[in-house]
């Protein structure tokens, strides 16, 4: 009996470990969600003092916190659109064409991801200082697009590499011109990758603290507001908004993964069962943020 239990334990030790490690990764998230229902008497939301829904009902009750959050949303939306567009075009050029300067272009895209944020922020600030450019929303926008582009390229590129170009040839054979082929075949198949990249870019932007702190001037984003509030004590509303943000991002993420699988099925000229078999055998989705892809 004990021998068998021991054997089972040895065989599954790695799985048990994996579960514990995942729980460790999720622990702070769980804590944030729980503390969004806390009812602290003082300014500090550090110890559990009782359950209340008040802060959820009144999540946007602190005007400057709400303003900061709205600024963050606007900034993330705007920089996501631009970074996704520029990054997708970059990925297309990089994967589909042979050209002079390819290695340099590759290097230029990878190197910002391998540079500490503090250096990126400091360098941009140095330039803005020397030119006497006023810091604010515009400089934040410039910075956010800059650090998002590389990540967009990595995600879209990994999707382009797995692209079955016979589908485009088929469209051309059937009489579609180059533009129609792009609009009706290439773009729809690429869409999950582009949406995934946009999502990543949005998450990076709304979460960014270090680069933003250097280039914000008087503009206050959500993370910058939290930093400012940390000394005085962070209100429960911050935990509520963070939890909302978590739920929204997680839902969007699950949706994209699901869409990706659907699009992968569409992209194969194979009977349904065979596609399923191949999907099962295939490596999982490419990891975001992996250098070089």
């Amino acid at each position, binding site marked *: 009996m004990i021998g068998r239990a021991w054997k089972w334990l040895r065989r599954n030790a790695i*799985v048990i470990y994996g579960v514990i*490690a995942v729980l460790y990764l999720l622990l702070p998230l769980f804590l944030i969600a729980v503390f969004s229902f806390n009812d602290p008497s003082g300014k500090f939301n550090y110890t559990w003092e009782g359950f209340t829904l008040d802060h959820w009902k009144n999540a946007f009750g602190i005007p400057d916190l709400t303003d900061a959050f709205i600024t963050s949303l606007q900034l993330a939306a705007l920089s996501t659109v631009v970074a996704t567009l520029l990054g997708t075009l970059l990925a297309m050029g990089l994967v589909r064409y042979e050209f002079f300067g390819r290695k340099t272009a590759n290097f230029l895209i990878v190197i910002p991801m391998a540079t500490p944020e503090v250096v990126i922020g*400091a*360098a941009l600030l*140095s330039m803005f200082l020397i030119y006497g450019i006023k810091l604010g929303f515009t400089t934040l926008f410039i910075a956010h697009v800059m650090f998002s582009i590389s990540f967009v390229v990595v995600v879209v590129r990994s999707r382009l590499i797995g692209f079955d170009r016979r589908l485009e040839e088929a469209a051309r054979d059937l009489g579609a011109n180059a533009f129609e082929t792009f609009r009706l075949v290439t773009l729809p198949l690429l869409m999950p990758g582009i949406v995934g990249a946009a999502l990543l870019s949005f998450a990076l932007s709304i979460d960014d603290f270090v680069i933003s702190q250097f280039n914000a001037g008087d503009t206050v984003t959500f*993370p910058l507001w939290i*930093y400012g509030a*940390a000394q005085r004590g962070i209100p429960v509303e911050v935990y509520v908004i963070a939890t909302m943000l978590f739920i929204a991002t997680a839902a969007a993420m699950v949706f994209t993964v699901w869409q990706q699988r659907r699009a992968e099925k569409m992209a194969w000229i194979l009977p349904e069962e065979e596609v399923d078999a191949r999907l099962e055998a295939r490596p999982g989705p490419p990891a975001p943020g992996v250098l070089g892809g």
Partner: protein
Amino acid sequence: MSTVRRRLVPYFLMGPGLVWLILFFVVPLYFMGRLALESGTLATGFEFTWEFANFTDSFDRFDEQFVRSFVYAGVATVIALLIAYPLAYAIAFRGGRWKNALLLAVVAPFFTTYLIRTIAWTTILSDDSVIVDVLKAVGLLGDEGRLLATPTAVIAGLVYNFLPFMVLPIYSSLERIDVRLIEAAKDLYASARVAFWKVTLPLSMPGVVAGTLLTFIPAAGDYVNAFFLGSINQSMIGNRIQSLYLMELDYPTAAALSFILMAAILAVVVVYIRFAGAEALMGDEGEQRA
């Protein structure tokens, strides 16, 4: 005509993005270098004077923070590797139909704000927390001992915050391994252990190299963890750069420090890649064209 046009297509596609990166990443680095060579004070104004002494002076002033940053980042990277490898292995080989859910859980921390995650750790490690009580009960921590404002807390924060960057690349290189190679090793009478050391681990090295770099680089420049989880005695070079730029407004010193940080990280990375002998950082060109 049309071949010329075709040849120009990639440049049109990539132009806007590359220009953005050059204008707002490469050019700013040049200006940071210029700023680092200026002299003067905030009151009198700064002037460009090829002040190379800024580099040596600022390093001498903050060598302690430099050493601390690299030690903390190094220790955090090793711990993260030890935690991440078995986790990535479990997901890749034993994940089964839970694979995608587990991967989602690994990146889940990125769905909440970095600052709040770190602040959550101040609650978890605070003086009257369960963890501190347990450590005191087992005797690992003295009666007056605490976790917050210690190197342990800062390193723990670094490990936690950058762990997904370690797990994901290792996972994707483990996932790519042809399982038949491992089976072949076992058919040739390798024990599970030998098969792991001789086949699985070497094949997953690109992921390990990428993961350690992706953890070490941001950790060495980080100042958020030291700010929230440490005290002034744990302040890292990032903290100094931040306060020199934004509070003390001593731009030349701040720029010089940033430059030294970048150069030092680059040096560590180059030596490390030489040593590890992998091209993991740039990705494989051949594979890309496939």
